[in-house]
């Protein structure tokens, strides 16, 4: 059984009791599906991290000023100078 309230809390979502019921059924069926997949024998199968065969390309360690602090702040709902202002978190 899935604990919808705990999952909702981790995602910072507030659900009504109707939503809780609906999501509980949906999430449970998803989890159920994976437990069926889990039954497949994968003893000699490498975990698939990415479906592509592209190999990693490193970025060289060079700094670059992409945008100014002023631009970075443009979407901030609240600010104090060039700092983001958020509800208290302590």
């Amino acid at each position, binding site marked *: 059984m899935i604990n919808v309230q*705990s999952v909702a809390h*981790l995602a*910072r979502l507030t659900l009504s009791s109707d939503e809780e019921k609906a999501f509980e059924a949906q999430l449970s069926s998803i989890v159920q599906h994976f437990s069926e997949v889990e039954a497949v024998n994968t003893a000699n199968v490498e975990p698939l*991290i*990415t479906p*592509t065969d*592209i*190999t*990693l390309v*490193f*970025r*060289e*360690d*060079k*700094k*670059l*000023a*992409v*945008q*100014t*602090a002023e631009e*970075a*702040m443009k979407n901030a709902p609240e600010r*104090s*100078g*060039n*700092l*983001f*202002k*958020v*509800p*208290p*978190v*302590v």
Partner: protein
Amino acid sequence: MPSNNWEAVIGLEIHAQLLTESKMFSVDSASFGGADNEYTSPVSLGMPGALPTINRRGVEFGIRMGLALNCNIRTRSVFSRKNYFYPDLPKGYQISQFDEPICEKGYVDIYLDGKPKRIGVTRAHLEEDAGKSTHHGDYSLINLNRAGVPLLEIVSEPDIKTPQEAAEYARTVRNILRYLGVCDGNLEEGSMRCDCNVSVRKTGEKKFGTKVELKNINSFRFVEKAIDYEINRQISCLESGERILQETRLYDSTKNRTYSMRSKEEAHDYRYFPDPDLLPLVFEQKWVDEIRATLPELPLEKAKRFQTQYGLPEYDALVLTQERAVAEYFENVAKLSGNAKASSNWIMVELMRELKESEKSIEEQKIRGEDLAELIQLIDKGTISGKIAKTVFAEMWAQGGRPADIVKTKGLVQVTDRAAIEKWVDEVMSASANQVNEYRSGKDKLFGFFVGQIMKVSRGQANPDLVNQVLKEKLKK
């Protein structure tokens, strides 16, 4: 301290900020400081669609440190998302490594009270730092300059038994980081951070007790004090029949105590999974071998060499090799002066005392290696006495310059002229006739008094051996 058959089990998680130019997953500058939110590209801001790229030097520094920690280096490792909500982490997850870290199964040798001990390193993995938040009552302010700065998290095995071992392990790791030039290891500024996992159990018990994580420790002395406090707190809890909660506690250095930061109910569930924005971190063994070939001589190897090559006592060798710059300074002075033990003494006693008092590094002070070597030679040749040398040293520390010049301009050359010394001895003996009589009637201890007086009237310039000789002769009469 553990008493009444309790023993402590301690493990350390050290976060080291890597000295790259740009951040781990973006081109923003990784330097300390900067104007508010100056180093914040869309990647650092966690803007939707902004994609991370892997900094080659960040990986290289991780491998470098992993090799110095005697770890196995995985040529294929995976970056994962560690999910949690906090405003200093705008993406809602930290890119880290979970089940396949880049470095695993290493160890660090430490020396405590002259005894070696090996501490296992479970793993060292690459991740990104979070931003910085400051709290102002009804709101918090966020600066994301630090968000994305590369970190290497070094996790020890729970091999550590005492607060002293923990602090020494942390010091040793810091020395290695600094030798490699991958981290400046500044605890106060937070470029190196030590989290300590502490639990206690009855001696002989196989199972671990419930562990508590200590955070917010910004000096090695506080590592020791915080763990010491925590061990005692846990023992008294258990002895009075309470249970230990698995929690994070913060150390308050002003009160020397730890206090609870998060309750158990809010325990995190990080839901790690491979970051789909990043490919697995894959590189060739050849690169690892190349990095291995460039590793410098590490502190303990250097200390061993100093003992065999220069005949230094183990204590001297360990002290002199803690900082690479100090070790190199010593070698230079020892070679130029031809007197390794004197070089070690001058550096460990006089120079290090001045450095500590002025909070300077060896690179920032005025005494050049060749000047200290010259000073040692002036003593060895008998040009100046050890006492005068301290005066010259003080002048060198304050103003810099060659000791030979200082000796000349200040008229500090040691007097080895017998007639001049006899004159000083006579002067002192006639001024202290009572003491001379007491000495002659058996009060041997007064000899030192006469020497002191003679050195005083000669302004420290009299050759001490000659003073002893002349004084003995004259007092016999």
